[in-house]
């Protein structure tokens, strides 16, 4: 099966043409400065026609077997990969208040695909689905519940597909030692907006992210955890409005803010550059704290698994974590395994989309 994977972001559209039989992307790319909303239909048309043209050229003129649409935010309404139909489109519309930029973009892409690739099955996958089972104590904020509910202010994880796949990866390798349901896994996803989840069995107990991926661990350009009053101080002292502060916290902070340079995790952890030293120390420490919270949440730890695109950094970070006194001591009484799940997001998406379509089609798609 060949699946066209579309991953719309705030400013770009990633696409991949993935062959499940070859387990790799036949081609992939990224459209920058992309605006995906109902007001930008011309942009979407141009962009998608370009992507489809490339796919057709690479696929000897045959259209994709399926389309997988990946969004970070699926709210509480999408707990698993979901085929696109009238009912799921309605549910998507209900999510607009919680993700006013992302959901209209997904709807516009669905419109385009229905018009231009009629009959091609589509699947929606969300980074938040894995976290819909989070307990209230983890997902709520210390805010008035009516206010939080009306503004959809609750915590979630956004790299659920990585974490879910990583936990399966760990369970496959530790099945002799770990009974399902009791394995205590710290899953660390090293993407430009990194995230840690503590997973008991297959159920997430904590996530470092919040209502958005801005909370938690610092990213390439995102600030991560800061005192909530800082945004207010910037408004009071500098006279900045919410949009200006948002731009600073999401695009000028994180590793960029700490180093003054556009660096990624691999460079920070591996280069040894003096300018990266503080960023590395801050990150290591934040990861250590997040691990400690996860261990407390699960009352223990059996395995740490890394996923995401920065595996070289993961190697250095894991060594540093395991050399900490706590992990040294914990490792004396119980073995803590470290795994590296190198499956790319496209592979995870394609696998899940394929399974979803097979499960939901009356006729088998593939023989």
């Amino acid at each position, binding site marked *: 099966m060949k699946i066209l994977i579309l991953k719309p972001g705030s400013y770009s559209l990633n696409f991949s043409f993935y062959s499940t039989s070859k387990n790799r992307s036949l081609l992939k790319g990224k459209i920058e400065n992309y605006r995906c909303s109902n007001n930008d239909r011309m942009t979407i048309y141009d962009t998608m026609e370009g992507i489809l043209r490339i796919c057709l050229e690479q696929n000897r003129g045959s259209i994709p077997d399926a389309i997988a649409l990946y969004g970070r935010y699926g709210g509480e309404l999408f707990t698993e990969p979901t085929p696109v139909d009238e009912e799921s489109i309605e549910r998507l519309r209900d999510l607009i208040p919680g993700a006013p930029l992302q959901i209209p973009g997904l709807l516009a892409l669905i419109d385009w695909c229905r018009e231009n690739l009629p009959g091609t099955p589509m699947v929606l996958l969300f980074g938040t689905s894995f976290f819909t089972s989070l307990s209230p104590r983890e997902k709520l904020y210390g805010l008035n519940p009516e206010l939080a509910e009306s*503004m959809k202010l609750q915590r979630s994880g956004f790299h659920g597909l990585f974490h879910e796949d990583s936990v399966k990866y760990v369970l496959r390798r530790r099945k002799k030692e770990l009974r399902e349901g009791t394995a205590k896994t710290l899953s660390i996803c090293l993407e430009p907006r990194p995230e840690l989840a503590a997973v008991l069995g297959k159920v997430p107990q904590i996530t470092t992210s919040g209502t958005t991926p801005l909370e938690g661990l610092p990213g390439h350009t995102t600030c991560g955890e800061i*005192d909530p009053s800082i945004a207010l101080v910037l408004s009071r002292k500098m006279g900045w409005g*919410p949009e200006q502060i948002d731009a600073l916290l999401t695009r000028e902070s994180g590793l*960029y803010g700490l180093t003054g340079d556009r660096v990624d995790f691999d460079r920070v952890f591996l280069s040894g550059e003096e300018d990266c030293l503080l960023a590395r120390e801050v990150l290591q420490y934040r990861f250590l704290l997040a691990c400690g919270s*996860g261990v*407390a949440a699960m*009352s223990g730890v059996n395995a740490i698994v890394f996923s995401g695109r920065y595996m070289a950094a993961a190697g250095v970070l894991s060594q540093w974590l395991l050399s900490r006194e706590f992990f040294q001591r914990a490792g004396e009484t119980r073995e803590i395994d470290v795994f590296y799940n190198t499956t790319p997001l496209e592979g995870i998406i394609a696998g899940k989309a394929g399974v979803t379509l097979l499960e939901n089609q009356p006729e088998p798609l593939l023989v």
Partner: protein
Amino acid sequence: MNIMVMNCGSSSLKYKILSMPDEMEMAGGEAQRVGPKTTEPARIIHRVWGKETTHFTDMADHGEAFREVMNLLKETPELEPDALGHRVVHGGNRFKKETLVDKAKIETLEEISDLAPLHNPPAVSLLKACNRMYPQLPQSAVFDTSFHSTMPEYAYTYALPGSLREGQGIRKYGFHGTSHQFVVEEAARLMNRPMEEMNAVSCHLGSGGASLCAVKDGRSVDNTMGYSPLQGLMMSTRSGDLDPAVVLRLMALHNGDAKAVEKKLNKQSGVLGMSGVSSDIRDVFSLREKKGTDQIKNTASLYLWRIRKYLGAYLTAVGNADAVIFTDTIGETMPLVRQIVCSDMDVFGIRLDAKKNETAELPADLAADDSPVRVFAIRTNEELAIARRTYNLVINLRKGVKA
């Protein structure tokens, strides 16, 4: 030597007179409703040797409140102070430890007032008034932030641009330092260990504010509060940790009115905002016992969960903890909180003795005999801590030792 310790609230002035070095509390009280007139009359509740009296008098500001208190103290000559010790919430980067204050230092404190706009200005105004009225009395300022001045750079740094970190002093400062230091010193004394060798996590759980502090080799290495006291645990009316994007959404909701959001997050959130019934977590636990609503149950479980997560984080950061210490109103008086927070924490070497936790008199070691990490409940005494530091400063001043 009589030391008068003062703790300024926005509309109150709490005080205690302690005889030092024997650490005996002789008098104390609180001037209430300081400032503009309110529906109820301003008053001073004054206590001498345990006997309480109430005096009604208008007090336009903290200086006047101080003058009235001094007038009351003059009625009992042996109570007149020899030195004054002030609790000041924020010392910023300029004051890394307690100090005797003079006019220049008061000016410096004024310069950093915007770091704690709700807390520092009344303390500075009181320092000025005391300096004016009793210039002969040595005055110290003891900062909530100073114990945390030993935090390493990687712990106090936010991942923000250098222009904000260096230019605007935006970093983690930490608070409740006087209390954290006091109870860790007490724990060290109970364990017969030098403070310099103590590794611990101190849980200051007040009925209002609350924070955890990671201590390595007797020095603070992290605190859950940050640039302001808003960060960290959920508190009585403060939200604690929030996604910065949530703050921005609230600002947009209030048409960019940062003050309105500040009020919402500091005064109308936390236990009060979540439960909708009380800002006191004890009320919430009590309602939960009586089969409370989901709102009540969620408030109680979120409160405990945040403490537990931070406890795990700090125990991991400390690495080889000797003790976990619970203090202040909730930490001292709520065995249920200690029990839930410490349950199933064997991986960190914590085993609580259920019976001791319920019945022991403070200060107490509540850990099971075989627990590698000791668990203490210790009554905090910030006034005594301030008096001790003020006393040492004054003694050094008299000896000619430079601070």
